[in-house]
């Protein structure tokens, strides 16, 4: 029983990591209708920037805020500079540019900060909640931050004019232009926000897994799995999906003998496929019915 609790709570902890990334993924998807493969690497780069600022002596929260702003600006700039010229190019070309960005960010991170793991400080107190040994304070704090971010994003998209304009620009650029939405800048805004969300994710994740340029490599797939399971159109669903992936992964690895730890990734694959077969829009996504 104790083991079960441990693994579930542990799963929630790693699930929190996936949920963070899943949120960033859904964010960008809502904004630009594409998956950005470079999301993880951009988040890692942002985290390195934050780490560097703290290393130079800056206060944690100041560094945090500054990094968010820098990431936002970087996201906007990337969209305007790199993607504007190829707006009319086929979708696949966009994918190639995502891949290119992945390579560039990964390589530059490694070049500037090398590959030794670095310790990222945690803003949360060290003493675990109620002195328990199951789940640390940072993991708990991270879950809270994720939920807060989720609420902010939800509110933004649902209740603000700009959020509505962004969704319109992504869903139907032509109609949006007709009603006066500046589609180009909406896309840029979306990129900026996604970069900022990713940065928060990275800063939250790094204290748990240690910071190095390849930090997000494995997490990316699990984050995608979480987003898909929860539903790409639903930020809340993505977060729930992330937690689910974390818990299921741990439970299957522990209690199903022939899977063990050797096939955990395959389990993630299977999860994705099963959910997509049974309910393609994800558990909480909006089901789109197209009529002929």
């Amino acid at each position, binding site marked *: 029983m104790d*083991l079960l609790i441990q693994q579930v709570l542990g799963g929630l902890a790693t699930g929190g990591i996936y949920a963070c990334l899943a949120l960033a993924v859904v964010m960008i998807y809502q904004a630009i209708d594409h998956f950005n493969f470079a999301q993880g690497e951009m988040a890692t780069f942002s985290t390195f920037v934050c780490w560097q600022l703290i290393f130079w002596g800056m206060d944690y929260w100041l560094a945090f805020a500054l990094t968010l702003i820098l990431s936002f600006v970087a996201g906007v700039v990337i969209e305007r500079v790199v993607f504007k010229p190829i707006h009319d190019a086929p979708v696949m070309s966009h994918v190639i540019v995502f891949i290119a960005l992945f390579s560039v960010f990964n390589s530059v991170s490694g070049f500037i900060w090398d590959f030794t793991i670095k310790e990222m400080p945690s803003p949360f107190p060290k003493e675990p909640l109620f002195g328990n040994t199951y789940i640390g304070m940072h993991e708990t704090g991270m879950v809270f931050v994720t939920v807060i971010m989720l609420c902010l994003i939800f509110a933004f998209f649902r209740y603000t004019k700009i959020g509505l304009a962004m969704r319109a620009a992504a869903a139907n650029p032509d109609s949006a232009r007709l009603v006066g939405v500046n589609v180009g800048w909406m896309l840029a805004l979306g990129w900026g926000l996604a970069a900022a969300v990713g940065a928060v994710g990275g800063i939250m994740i790094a204290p748990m897994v240690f910071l*190095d340029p390849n930090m997000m490599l494995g997490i990316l797939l699990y984050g995608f799995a979480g987003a898909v399971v929860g539903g790409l159109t639903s930020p809340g669903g993505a977060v729930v999906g992330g937690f689910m992936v974390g818990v299921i992964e741990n439970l299957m690895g522990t209690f199903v003998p022939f899977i063990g730890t050797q096939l955990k990734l395959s389990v993630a694959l299977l999860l994705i496929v099963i959910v997509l077969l049974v309910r393609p829009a994800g558990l909480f996504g909006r089901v789109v019915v197209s009529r002929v």
Partner: protein
Amino acid sequence: MTRFKKLIVGATAMTALALTAGAANAAGKYDEGASDTEIKIGNTNPYSGPASSYAVIGKSIDAYFKEINDRGGINGRKLNFISLDDGYSPPKTKEQFRRLVEKEKVLFIFQSLGTPTNSAVHKYINRKKVPHLFVATGATKWGDPENYPWTMGYQPNYQTAGKIFGNYVLQNKPKGKIGILYQNDDYGKDYVIGMQLALGDKFDKMVIAQQSYETTDPTVDSQVVNLRASGADVFYNVAIPKFAAQGIKKVHDMGWKPLHLLNDVSASIPSTIKPAGFEKSQGILTAGYMMDPNDPQWTDHEEMVAWRAFMAKYQPKGDLSNLNNVYGWAVAHLMEQVLIQAGDDLTRANIMKQAASVKDFRVPGLLPGINANTSATDFYPLEQMQMQRFEGEGWVRFGEIISAGSGS
């Protein structure tokens, strides 16, 4: 003589002169890649990809070879070190090896890194009869002169290390229950095999849980939880720095206090111990063979002083806390010794012969008392390790230097 005959005689004389001049000038005997002025050395390292943290080794070796060149080279010849990126991908390694041997025409390959990567070229390099020296991996298969006479390992192999751990448990905790965390690849499994060799038929009884992980896993917390739940009181931590550090942290935070055995690949203080936390790493045991530059007990040792001087001059931006910077510098010294021994006979066969004739050579940067030794039947230059315990902020050696010949 007719003019024609004169021409023939002249041409013949010139040719004869040229040939003998060539032969006479060769006070050295050379194979491809060597000449009076230079020795071409090939290398592959993962400068990109998941294993890029090891590329520091390639850079260190390059820096030390520069120092040798500044001193005038070896026997008057400069070293031309050609190091290519293989991204830790076996097909790429094969491609780069072929380029080094067939296009760049190096004399031999030195310190190529990685187990699957070197496996991909193992047969090729032996077919080509090019020395494949001091490969940067601890896998046991590199010391097989009978089947692969051109390949030689360097560091104490992982099975040796595993055996040392296994013997330690047998002697100090014979009723211990062992839980193993290992990376699911050659490196991880080799350590487990080493322990198996030491424990013999007690292995199944004593090892009650094994949990593997992949490098794509974000954390190993779940595995550690399972190991504890199995009732183990010995934790055998066979993980690379990132995951070993996670493991150390989790073990401590969980309140588990096992006998903690840490593999030497992750024993470096800045790579693993410091991120995990000094206070969480007290009492951890490892078996090592190198001096950790962060360990205060070595700061004033003459070899460390020499190393720091080297770093200041040739790698000023290099990380003085990174053990791999010592590793590269150290193994480059061994290569230097082999080349010095080879003298002017720079044929591949002689290089191999000299590599197999290293007697009690003091490789700087190794723990005192550990030396390099090879012979025609012993292709494992380093076979000694010593156990250490982490106390305070450094590793404290204890016990004797253990020599585990793992050919046996």
